[in-house]
């Protein structure tokens, strides 16, 4: 029974982690924190799409700047879709548009990393709390 419980807990952490990476705020929805997940999802998606609007779809992807792409890919599905659509870029543009686009999309990815780490932390805490409750119940 204990082995089953611990396997279930680690499965939950993996699913929550993958969901949290793929869909901004998805990990919170999975854990039942819908309001927190909704705010995180809207905040990260708005920042990401504002970045794409500023820099064009060409600012997302490994071709323009590899280090920024590492931060962008942390936002999960939006960055994957952006990378797949990268060949639709029309022109390079001038001024700060591309730089700001990379900054916005990169920061969106890093904020999603913050959410992912928080989801994993909450998963562990919830598991520890459940263990304490079940131990008290047995005593």
């Amino acid at each position, binding site marked *: 029974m204990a082995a089953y419980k611990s396997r279930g807990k680690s499965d939950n952490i993996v699913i929550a982690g993958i969901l949290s990476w793929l869909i901004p705020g998805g990990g919170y929805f999975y854990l039942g924190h819908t309001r927190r997940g909704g705010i995180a999802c809207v905040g990260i998606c708005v920042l990401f799409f504002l970045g794409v609007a500023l820099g064009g779809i060409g600012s997302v992807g490994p071709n323009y700047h590899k280090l920024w792409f590492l931060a962008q890919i942390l936002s999960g599905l939006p960055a994957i879709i952006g990378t797949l659509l990268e060949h639709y870029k*029309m022109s390079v*543009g001038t001024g700060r548009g591309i730089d700001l686009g990379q900054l916005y999309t990169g920061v969106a990815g890093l904020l999603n990393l913050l959410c992912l780490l928080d989801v994993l932390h909450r998963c562990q805490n919830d598991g520890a709390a459940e263990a304490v409750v079940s131990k008290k119940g047995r005593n």
Partner: protein
Amino acid sequence: MINLATTILAGILLEPMNIPTNAASLLWALPICIGIAVVYKAVKLEDNQLSLKPFIVETALLVATIIGFLILVAVVLLIIASLAWR
């Protein structure tokens, strides 16, 4: 109607915006500050504080703090630059 919406969306998302490199372009720091504050407070606040009023107050305080420190850093850099130009 769908074609028009698709054309407008494609125009927005495909073409990069031409933002001149002038002082006014620094205002583009505001949306990113707000975004960071919103997501950070969504992560940090307790469940009972996630209602509308406390969330807005906490987020506004964080935005003000970030902008305040950005201005402070700008002033310090300006002082260093002016000293270096002498």
